[in-house]
């Protein structure tokens, strides 16, 4: 009876444990240092790839939230206050979540498929055969790039969402620009911005960790594994992002909501 349970548990926990051990090893390699230029190039590449989609998605999300907030507040004749709802819910929850998702979809997929392609074509073994450590050389700088890039994506997402809300508020709903912006910001404190940045670092570790894990450590090297690594990085990356955001919100905002 107990053995069945334990077997079930160890089977279920094997991959998560392997994942944690992998990220820990990559983080340790990152702390041992690496060429700053590699990390800078990878970070700027990540931003170039992911920022546009982060901005577009969140601009429209901010706009749509405003439309719905106005529609519901209209009932109480308080449509001009719709910015408050977007400020609270958008900046604290929805925009960071979408930033994490967009990051997983764009840069997570790219990192995973790139590493897996190197695995399939034996480039990773070629590095190992030169007496180099592929984990330190390939995984650690990509993980760091995600850790540096993700907070910027989260902050950009917050701004884009607010601008989207402002645009709908003033152009479509006819709310005064100053009133709208003040309502938006009334929902946002400096604390929220700090939490957003911290959340960004966590999302960077998770999205980068999942992407490098899927691309580097899947153990597969068949031709189809490149596509598989990419879609696992997206799907699993998004699931992990959602779970982490939910957990963080409970911990930080849950008690005085």
């Amino acid at each position, binding site marked *: 009876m107990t053995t069945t349970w334990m077997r079930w548990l160890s089977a279920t926990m094997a991959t998560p444990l392997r994942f944690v051990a992998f990220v820990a090893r990559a983080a340790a390699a990152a702390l041992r240092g690496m060429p700053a230029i590699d990390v800078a190039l990878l970070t700027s590449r990540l931003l170039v790839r992911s920022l546009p989609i982060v901005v577009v998605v969140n601009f429209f999300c901010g706009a749509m939230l405003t439309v719905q907030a106005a529609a519901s507040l209209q009932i109480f004749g308080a449509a001009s206050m719709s910015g408050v709802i977007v400020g609270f819910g958008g900046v604290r929850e929805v925009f960071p979540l979408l930033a994490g998702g967009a990051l997983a979809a764009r840069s997570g997929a790219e990192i995973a498929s790139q590493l897996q392609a190197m695995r399939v074509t*034996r*480039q990773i073994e*070629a590095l190992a*055969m*030169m007496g*180099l450590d592929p984990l330190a050389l390939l995984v650690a700088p990509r993980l760091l790039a995600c850790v540096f890039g993700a907070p910027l994506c989260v902050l950009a997402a917050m701004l884009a969402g607010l601008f989207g809300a402002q645009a709908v508020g003033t152009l479509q709903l006819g709310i005064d620009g100053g009133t709208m912006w003040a309502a938006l910001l009334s929902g946002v404190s400096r604390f929220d911005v700090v939490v957003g940045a911290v959340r960004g670092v966590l999302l960077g570790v998770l999205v980068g960790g999942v992407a490098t894990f899927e691309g580097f450590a899947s153990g597969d090297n068949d031709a189809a594994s490149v596509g598989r690594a990419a879609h696992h990085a997206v799907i699993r990356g998004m699931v992990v992002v959602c779970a982490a955001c939910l957990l963080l919100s409970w911990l930080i905002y849950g008690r005085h909501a």
Partner: protein
Amino acid sequence: MTSSMPAPAARSAAIELVGVTRRFSARAVLDDVNVAIAAGRTTVLLGPSGTGKSTLLRLATGLLSPDAGVVRTLGVDVFAAKKPSLLQLRRRMGMLFQDNALFGSLSVFDNIAFPLRRVARTPEADVRRRVDELLALVGLSGFGERLPDRLSGGQRKRVALARAIALEPELVLFDEPTSGLDPQTSASIDQLIRATQRRLGITFVVITHDIESAALIADDAGLLLDGKVHVFGDRATVWASTDPRVRAFLDRAPPAGAPR
């Protein structure tokens, strides 16, 4: 006097496998393999596809671990070695992968320069000189700026050889260097392998199922069958073997009962 004669096994072996077994999902791909590959020569390991030739090479480099037995490469017990000494050992060998494993985003020059820059930390002026030298050695002078994609299969193999010998290894491993190449290109790669080995005097280990190629480059030869080294010795001895299975492989006789 006679008692101080070195035992044959003590003659310097570049790679030594003692009782090595490796399984993949319960099937023993290599089954209690014993072989000693002599230093300073070219040894060709032959065998039909799927007999574990690549597996043997990967064991010798520590990229794969055995289920039983000892692998000694350049005098180092590969699976007793700690990670730093394993990395150190790998710097003393070069490997040509079946599909070359060139870095696709780097030019030919940067591919060959990679181990010099990243491993040996060679000053940039020396890198240039050394890469030009290597390009000339493999007959690719003037191709430095190309991307690997823009080369023919034979040229890519030459780049892989140049990269593998850039750090002046003591041992170079070749995984099917002529597979997928046309007969003429294969012959030119065989010639290059032979000439390079003669010139450097280091140990080359080549695995292949290409008998013609083996006849051209081998000093020693072995035949892998059913997870065992079926025969091993100098080329003339192996080629003169009367063992029916060796003959069948070398004479390319189809297995009994095979469809015609």
